[in-house]
Every structure is written in C-alpha cells, then in structure tokens.
C-alpha cells in the first residue's frame, strides 16, 4: 500500500474532505438560521395584528 | 454668473488649493519620514549592527519602510475632503473626476513620498547601503513611489468613509504592491550584485505610465461606487 509518505497523503486528503464538509454545512446552517428568524418574525407579527398596539 | 472654468483651470485651482492646505500643516510632511526612520532603525536592533548584514538587506528594508510609510499616509488622501464635504462637491463638479483625483494624488505624492525620497540618502547611510547603489535606489523610488501612490489611491477610494479601515486597506493593497516592490527593490539588488538593472526600471516605468492613465480613472470609478 502506501509507503513512508502515508501520513502526508492522508493529511492532504483529509484537509480536502474537511474543506468540502465545511463548504457543504455553512450555507445550510445560514439558511436554517435565516428561516427560523423569519418564522419568528412572522409569528410575532401575526399575534400583533388583531390587538393593534402601535 | 461667471464663465465656466476649463478643466485645466480647474485642475490648477485644485492643485493650488491642496498645496495651500498642505502648507498650513507642513509639519505633517515629516510624519512619514519619521515613521520610515523608525522602521529602518528597528532592523539593526533586530539583526545586529554588523555592516555586512545590514548592507545586504539595505535596499529591501528601505523599500519596505517607504512602502509602509506610504501605506499609512494613504488615508489622508481623501479624509479631509470627505469630512468637510468638499469631496462630494468635487464629484458633482462639471469636470472629469479622474482629472481632479489625479491632481489630488499628485499633491499627496509630493507631500508624502517626496520627503521620503529626499531622506533616502540618510536611510542609506544608516544601513550601509553598498557603494554605487544609491543612484539606482533613488531612481527606483522615483518611479516606484508614484506608482504606489496611484495604486493606493484606487484602494483608498474604494474604502473611503470606512472607519478603522487600516488593516483592510493593507490587505487590499498588498497584492497590488507586490510587483512594484519586486521590481523596485529587485533592481537595486541587481545593481548591488553588478547585474544589469535597467530592465526592472523600465518595467517600473511602463507600469507608471499605465497607472498614470488608468489609476485616476479607476479611483474616480471607485469613489462613485463607494459614495453612492
């Protein structure tokens, strides 16, 4: 299999995979956070409408 | 109402105004020189005072010190005019903004870089600059510092109005400064080794000519983008 350079090779491939995972997760987390914030705002506005406090 | 002044007349008026404002604060012209002197003085303390060591790094250190001093002084290019509203007036003027910006860059270079260039023989002495390389050094700075001012002006225009933009400014300017530094300091290093150095200086000159035409245009565009 791989000779003495194995740790270097594995390290490189691991960095690559780690980068892809990071790249996949970050926008998803952002989108989820944004949707949650909008949902909360919508709920707040829904409860405010009938009462109508300025 | 008086007749509309021509663009060259407006350019001249802007130069006279900026120089007059500068003259009122002429002490400030020493600030970049003091900064460069401090930076240069750090190296003997860091590396030891042996002439041989310092002589080898002298061209590079002087170039870096002047580059950093110039970078720090870039903020003053538009700051005063931005704060008192003159910048907006310049942008609304019926003259090409690029010409007016070019004038401001000229005055800024004369007030920040020219003192540095005049102080260079002093810096050269402090660092034991090798014999015969002062000429190429001054020439490289004469070509390189206007280039740095022009390139820096574009970046400063893009970030005008930003508070605490110092670190960001340096990050944005560095990639653009690298080629100038390479050819500028490189020409002096070549001269120090007895190699031909006119190629590098010609490249600097070519870059300067291009920047003289393009940088004011880019800076004007950047101002409009940053201040809309």
């Amino acid at each position, binding site marked *: 299999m791989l*000779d003495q*350079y*194995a740790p270097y090779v594995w390290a490189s491939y691991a960095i690559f995979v780690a980068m892809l995972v990071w790249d996949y997760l970050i*926008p998803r987390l952002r*989108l989820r956070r944004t949707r949650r914030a*909008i949902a909360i705002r919508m709920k707040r506005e829904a409860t405010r409408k009938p009462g109508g406090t300025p | 109402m008086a007749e509309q002044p021509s663009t060259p007349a407006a350019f001249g008026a802007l130069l006279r105004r900026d120089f007059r404002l500068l003259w009122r604060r002429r002490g400030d012209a020493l600030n970049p020189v003091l900064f460069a002197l401090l930076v240069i003085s750090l190296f003997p303390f860091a590396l030891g005072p042996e002439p041989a060591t310092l002589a080898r790094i002298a061209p590079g250190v002087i170039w870096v010190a002047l580059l950093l001093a110039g970078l720090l002084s870039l903020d003053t290019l538009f700051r005063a005019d931005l704060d008192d509203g003159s910048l907006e007036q310049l942008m609304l003027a019926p003259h090409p903004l690029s010409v007016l910006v070019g004038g401001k860059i000229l005055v800024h270079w004369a007030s920040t870089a020219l003192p540095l260039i005049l102080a260079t023989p002093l810096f050269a002495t402090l660092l034991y600059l090798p014999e015969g390389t002062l000429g190429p050094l001054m020439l490289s700075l004469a070509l390189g510092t206007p280039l740095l001012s022009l390139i820096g002006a574009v970046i400063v225009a893009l970030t005008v109005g930003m508070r605490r933009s110092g670190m960001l400014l340096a990050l*944005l300017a560095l990639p653009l400064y690298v080629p100038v530094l390479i050819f500028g300091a490189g020409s002096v290093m070549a001269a120090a080794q007895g*190699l031909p150095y006119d190629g590098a200086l010609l490249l600097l000159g070519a870059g300067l000519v291009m920047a003289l035409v393009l940088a004011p245009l880019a800076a004007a565009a950047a101002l409009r*983008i940053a201040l809309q």
Partner: protein
Amino acid sequence: MNPFMRWLHYLGAPPNFNAFAARWAPWFFLAAVPCILYGFWQALFVVPADYQQGDSYRILFIHVPSAWMSLFIYGVMAVNGFIALVWRIKLSEVLAMSCAPIGAAFTFVTLATGAIWGKPMWGTWWTWDARLTSELVLLFLYLGVMGLYAAIEDRRAAARAACFLALIGIVNLPIVHFSVEWWNSLHQGATIRLFGKSTIDPSMLPPLIALTFGTKFWFAGSLLTRTRATMYELESGKDWVRRDLEARG
C-alpha cells in the same frame, strides 16, 4: 430576445432563482460525490506509485484540481462582478460574493496540500516559487474581497465595491505571477522547481479528470446553495420569502 437571455432574465428574479437553486443544487452534489469518490479510489489504490516520488505524489490529485478550481472560481467571480457592475443585476452581485469563500477554500487547500507535498519531497514546507507565491497572493485577493464585502453596511454597495476589487485583482494576478518569476530568476538557486519536467503519464489521468469534474460539480452545487442562502437574507422582508417558507415548512 433569444430564449437563453429570456431564461437568464427569468432567473434574475429572486423567487425564480430560489426555486431553481433549491431544485438543482442537490443534483450537482449528487453528481460530485461519485466523481470524487471514484477519483479518490483511483488516486489512492489504483494508480501506480511514481518512480521518483513514491506515493507522496498522490497528493497531486488533490493539489492540482484545487489549484485549477482556485483560478476557475476567481474567473467566475470576476465575470459575475463585471455583470453586476455594468448591468447592476442583484443576482450577479450575490453570485460573485458567494464565489469568494469557495474560491478561498480551494486556494487554502492548494497551499496546504502544496506545503504538505513539499515537505517530504523537497525538505521544506514552503518555497517562494512563482506558482505558490501567486497562489498566496490569490488567497489575499479572495480574503480582500470577502473583507471588503463584510466591511460595508449597505449590502448592494458592499457587493459592488467588492466586485470592483475582484476585477482589479484579476488584472493583478498575472502581473504578480510574472513579477515573482522574474524575481526568482534574479535570485537563482533560491527556487525549488515544484513542477519539474514531469509529463503526466496517461495512467494518471483518470483520477485527475474525475476530481476535476467532481470539484466543478461541487462548486456548482455550493454556489447555488450559498447564493440562495444570501438571497434569503437579503429578501427576508419580501412576500415571496414568506410564501416559500410556508410552502417548504
């Protein structure tokens, strides 16, 4: 107006792009993963070890596609930046800004894998040769675009300023490469040629091609997802966002 332009116009509207991105991004990721896995398998287990470099050259199959992506993504960013500045299309602004972190990530991987490859091979983590130094400057360019975008309050003005910077950068990058090459030739012997006269053996092509396609598909999926996420943030007050939220639960 031809159909392609009409389709681009259609995509320019945020709700349409959102639907498009939501629909197609998963497929791009789905196309990317097998390519990357196949590339890994080929690179690590099938392709024979190099005569001179042993197994460490397998890092090439990560390093080279990442380097290509770092440059390709900058090109995509610059094109979108140009469109954004000239035609003021909001979607192009966001696309350009979404390119930057992905490009920076690939650039970082290029630099890191280059250093890791350099250590066993040439005994040094870093060398100031033209390619690595230009790659480092490229990283600064990406970080500069991201930094400028983050530093300005108004999102559209911020995007336009950063797009302008990206365009300046694309002019600058070949200049930097050229100047660093000159500089290395001046200080002879200080360089270690990272890529020598090696010609790619045909047996080495499958993993290289697989990872090239895989990273491109991945980039497409990631760009669509990031742009969608940013559009959501920018348009959060609009009706279409609320309707989309209710529809997708």
